């Protein structure tokens, strides 16, 4: 391997591969400002633990929505059941932690392996099932998993869920635990964002865009679409499973009824669509917006259950490119991702 510095880029030569890494600081300005803003937010509201929990929840939503945005572009299909992998990660972490007493770092390894394994097992769906059929299958998967948790109540504890999971952070003081967990969730989300952003800015992003647009033409251009779809589905599934791991160790309990049901999935899909329709940074904007809106509308009482979806529906129909599109509207883009359930 040979590394050289060329035109504000690090160029890596590995055998006959050539990879470039942009290091010009001007590309970092806006992301750094956004990260600084997100990092300061928990400090501003640290006196209110319920707000810190709200931030953590928003980060969990974003951590599911970010890999999902990559997945839906990379396989060219709408996945209506990302929470299946949240369930895999959460239940695996909970069972290992409760029955074997494993700490979060030990369970993380197994969750990663399980996420990859289940992703790989289900990945042929991306090549077999097209359009609406894929969406329907992925919609049913978490519901089957939920039924499974009810049938095997002695293992998954049905509606009550598993409790007594080893906490992620235990520093003695409750407020400190909340703050550190909040930063932990933010770190997980930002790491996920950084990885997916780097991937999508590389040639893999171009492959994903081509597959999302017209996979038959992409294959005629020489792209091994099945290989890339399987790879994309497997990796993103693993990333979503890690979110389940975090949720299990953060809340100390994990129940299928919270994560495997349709409302959680609808929320995630709305975050992807309202945030920016496949725009990665939009996932964070959407996650924070939806989490805060849900909390803010609770002051309305029971009417909240009508107002919350109504506001989201209005936004869905009026903001063509989502909330992030308001910022990106006038900027040059190479790719306008389209998220839709295809007919074929």
């Amino acid at each position, binding site marked *: 391997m040979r590394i050289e510095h060329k035109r504000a880029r690090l160029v890596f030569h590995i055998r006959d591969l050539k990879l470039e890494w942009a290091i010009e600081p001007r590309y970092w300005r806006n992301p750094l400002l956004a990260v600084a803003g997100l990092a300061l937010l928990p400090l501003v509201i640290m006196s209110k633990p319920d707000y810190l929990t709200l931030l953590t929840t928003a980060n969990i939503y974003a951590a599911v929505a970010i890999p999902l945005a990559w997945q839906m572009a990379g396989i060219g299909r709408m996945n209506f059941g990302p929470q299946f992998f949240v369930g895999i990660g959460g239940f695996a972490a909970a069972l290992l932690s409760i029955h074997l007493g494993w700490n979060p770092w030990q369970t993380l390894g197994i969750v990663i392996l399980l996420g990859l394994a289940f992703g790989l097992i289900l990945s042929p769906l991306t090549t077999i099932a097209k359009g609406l059929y894929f969406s329907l299958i992925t919609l049913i998967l978490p519901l089957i998993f939920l039924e499974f948790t009810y049938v095997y109540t002695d293992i998954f504890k049905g509606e009550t869920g598993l409790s007594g999971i080893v906490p992620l952070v235990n520093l003695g003081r409750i407020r400190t635990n909340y703050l550190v967990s909040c930063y932990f969730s933010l770190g997980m989300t930002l790491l996920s964002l950084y990885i997916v952003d780097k991937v999508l800015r590389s040639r893999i992003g171009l492959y994903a865009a081509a597959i999302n647009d017209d996979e038959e033409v992409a294959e005629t*251009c020489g792209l091994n679409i099945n290989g890339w779809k399987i790879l994309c589905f497997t990796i993103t599934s693993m990333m979503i499973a890690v979110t389940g791991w975090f949720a299990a160790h953060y809340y100390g309990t994990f129940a299928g009824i919270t994560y495997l049901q349709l409302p959680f999935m609808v929320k995630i899909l709305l975050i992807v669509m309202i945030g920016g329709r496949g725009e990665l940074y939009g996932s964070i904007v959407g996650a924070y917006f939806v989490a805060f809106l849900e909390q803010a509308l609770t002051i309305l009482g029971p009417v909240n259950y009508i107002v919350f979806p109504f506001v989201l529906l209005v936004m869905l129909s009026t903001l063509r490119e989502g909330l992030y599109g308001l910022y990106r509207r006038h900027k*040059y883009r190479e790719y306008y991702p389209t998220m839709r359930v295809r007919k074929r």
Partner: protein
Amino acid sequence: MLLKIENLTKNFGGLVAVHEVSLSIEEGEIVGLIGPNGAGKTTLMNLISGYYKCNAGKIEFDGVDITGAKPHKICHLGLGRTFQIPRPFQDLTALANVGVGVLCGKHRPHMSYGDGLLDASHCLEFVGLFGKRNTLARDLTLYELRALELARALATTPKLIMIDEVMAGLNPGEASRAINLVRRMIEEYHITIFWIEHVMKVIMEATERVIVLHYGEKIASGPPREIVHDPKIIEAYLGEKIA
């Protein structure tokens, strides 16, 4: 022999779209493929490019048996194609469209993503679309889309390009620009061309040999001047009475 097809047959249920077609194309040749509507021209192209699987027969490209091979593997061997109705990646810019061809086509060592896009810009310059490199494909005109299809096919570094009715829907001015473009492609890149076309004038001027399909069968093959005077061809195109 660059492309060799032996007794290729394709059925869609009870309909025989291509029936025992055999043909061969030498390196550097410009071969035309003509036939009335529904003769099976595009089906033949789809069979060669791996889009459809044949029911019987054999396809060899550059000495390699590509019968039933995946389209991306056929592309890597050096067989490019364009589509009758342009199928660009609508949500991508012209540059990114051609970039897909460069980066996914034949494996080129030491080519980074940036190098790939630079190479794509050369292809766009060749077809006269450099000024439109940052325009989304969905905003291009029909002629520009045809040029983009050619640039994308060229970007995969093919030995043979199958062009499917590049003139369809173009006005006379655009059509002559398109013919010049294909000619320049042959001159500068020394690519073999297999050209499906309805416009006989183009076939007469540009090709060295013409193959005629009718109801999925090959009914004639030869120089264009001889083909147009063949009574069988006139009958196929205009009917028995006129022939």
